[in-house]
């Protein structure tokens, strides 16, 4: 039996998350195959082939994969079920959308947000906004896991030489959903979940224009920009900036939280960062409890000052 990793990509490039899922897959000690469903994205296949540790790339090519619909992807996974006893995806919005659908069709109880693989039946995962860590054991023959990528390394993007196996795309013409449009955030900055440094702003930023102050610091540090839920709900920044229990999980080398109080739901998404800095005018703010360096200051003075000294 082998492990099947569901690849993620944007039509051009394989996502960094996939490299972390392959790293997790290695800990299961089986041959690893990578499922690529794409709109004949030859470059994605080229990158998939080169991933270190992958034996075979399952190539599901069809125009319908220009966009990803859970019904289509789940059908691909189910069509190759016989050869695999592990199905892995990242705990991105894509993995969270697709894998449980496939798992239910295979009668598998999925384990979500796995942060550690102890052996091929035993896993660790955070629960209750990361305030507890559960060790769980599966009695199932086949298992499906979503992987919290920040808890794993990235396997090499090159050096592999997997063979490509062309697969018949299951027919899902009768599916009842379809793509209408998307509005993806375009940015020159590193991607939030892959960035080395993140500068995040909260309600203390007061409005969207003031995020320019954060952006200026981020530019100096080649950092990604993140936000708390309050900043997103208030419309300062788009939804994909949200870090936290119900947003993105991040663990950069340096996380700078500005005007963020440090609610448990925010901490759940960033407290595994290596170094944490908090800038907040309230010295009692809970964010200081997890910060390596705390600066009690008005952010409207501290941010321009910081920018000028970097």
């Amino acid at each position, binding site marked *: 039996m082998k492990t099947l990793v569901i690849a993620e990509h944007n039509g051009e490039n394989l996502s960094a998350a996939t490299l972390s899922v392959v790293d997790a897959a290695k800990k299961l000690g089986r041959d690893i195959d990578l499922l690529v469903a794409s709109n004949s994205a030859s470059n994605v296949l080229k990158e998939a082939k080169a991933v270190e540790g992958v034996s075979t790339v399952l190539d599901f090519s069809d125009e319908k994969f220009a966009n990803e619909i859970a019904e289509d992807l789940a059908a691909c996974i189910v069509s190759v079920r016989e050869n695999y006893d592990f199905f892995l995806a990242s705990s991105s919005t894509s993995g969270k959308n697709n894998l449980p659908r496939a*798992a239910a069709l295979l009668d598998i*109880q999925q384990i979500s947000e796995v942060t550690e693989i102890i052996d091929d039946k035993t896993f660790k*995962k955070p629960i209750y906004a990361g305030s507890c860590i559960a060790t769980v054991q599966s009695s199932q023959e086949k298992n499906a896991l979503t992987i919290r990528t920040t808890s794993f390394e990235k396997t090499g993007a090159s050096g592999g030489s997997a063979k490509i196996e062309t697969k018949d795309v299951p027919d899902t013409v009768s*599916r009842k959903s379809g793509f*209408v449009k998307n509005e993806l955030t375009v940015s020159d900055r590193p991607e939030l979940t892959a960035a080395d440094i993140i500068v995040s702003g909260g309600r203390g930023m007061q409005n969207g224009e003031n995020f320019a102050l954060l952006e200026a610091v981020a530019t100096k540090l080649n950092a990604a920009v993140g936000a708390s839920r309050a900043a*997103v709900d208030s419309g300062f920044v788009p939804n994909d900036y949200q870090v936290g229990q*119900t947003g993105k999980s991040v663990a950069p080398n340096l996380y700078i939280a500005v005007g963020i109080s440090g609610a448990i739901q925010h901490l759940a998404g960033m407290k595994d960062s290596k170094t944490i800095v908090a800038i907040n005018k309230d010295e009692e703010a809970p964010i200081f409890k997890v*910060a390596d360096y705390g600066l009690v200051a008005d952010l409207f003075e501290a941010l321009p000052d910081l920018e000028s000294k970097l």
Partner: protein
Amino acid sequence: MKILIPIKRVNDYNVKVRPNQTNTDVDLSNVKMAMNPFCEIAVEEAIRLKEAGKAEEIVVVTIGDDKHQEQLRTALALGADRALLVKTDNVLQPLDIAKTLAKVFEKESADLIIMGKVGIDGDNNQTGQMFAALTNLPQVTFASEVEINGNSVHVTREIDGGLETLTAEMPAVITTDLRLNEPRYASLPNIMKAKRKPLEELSLEELGINIETKITTLKVESPPERQEGVKVETVDQLVDKLRNEAKVI
């Protein structure tokens, strides 16, 4: 149009949940419980559709012990018309919840099933997708905008890269994200009225569900504590520490 809303009873989101003394489970003995915030958003969305004349009936359902009646009554006070409690003293895993809900759907039918994207307790984020798979219905997860368009529903979803809009023919399954709406509070008169709204009990046996524990919890621990660091007085000190001590810039 009829809307079915599966809701989950979880810890109040303000409470920090800890492991029990023996590290075998979490300790919920003195924890305030509430409706999962994402389920509140689901209930609110259904009420708005009803207020807009797009839906006629809202049915809420939960699977759990007697205490779950509290959350059903809350949903009734907010504006749901009827409630179903599938009674069990066992804590079911998402796949079994989805199978049970599929049976309820067979019995009740509905045009729209609105669920929370995730329970803030187990962070599973599975049940809606599994329910959609088992009933062979289209799924639109992480919704931030829902629009009914004749026989189909247009849904904007929050994804890692931004926003995406999908359309799905009804009956369809939607799971809610934070920005879909801001739930209201129940008024006192409505809380009183809710006591007289119908709440029906069902059993797993009646629905023909055999639960299977496929995943067991071996241990529940607190995560490693982060050491509280130091306060710096100035931006200069901060930059110096980041450069020379942490060496991260």
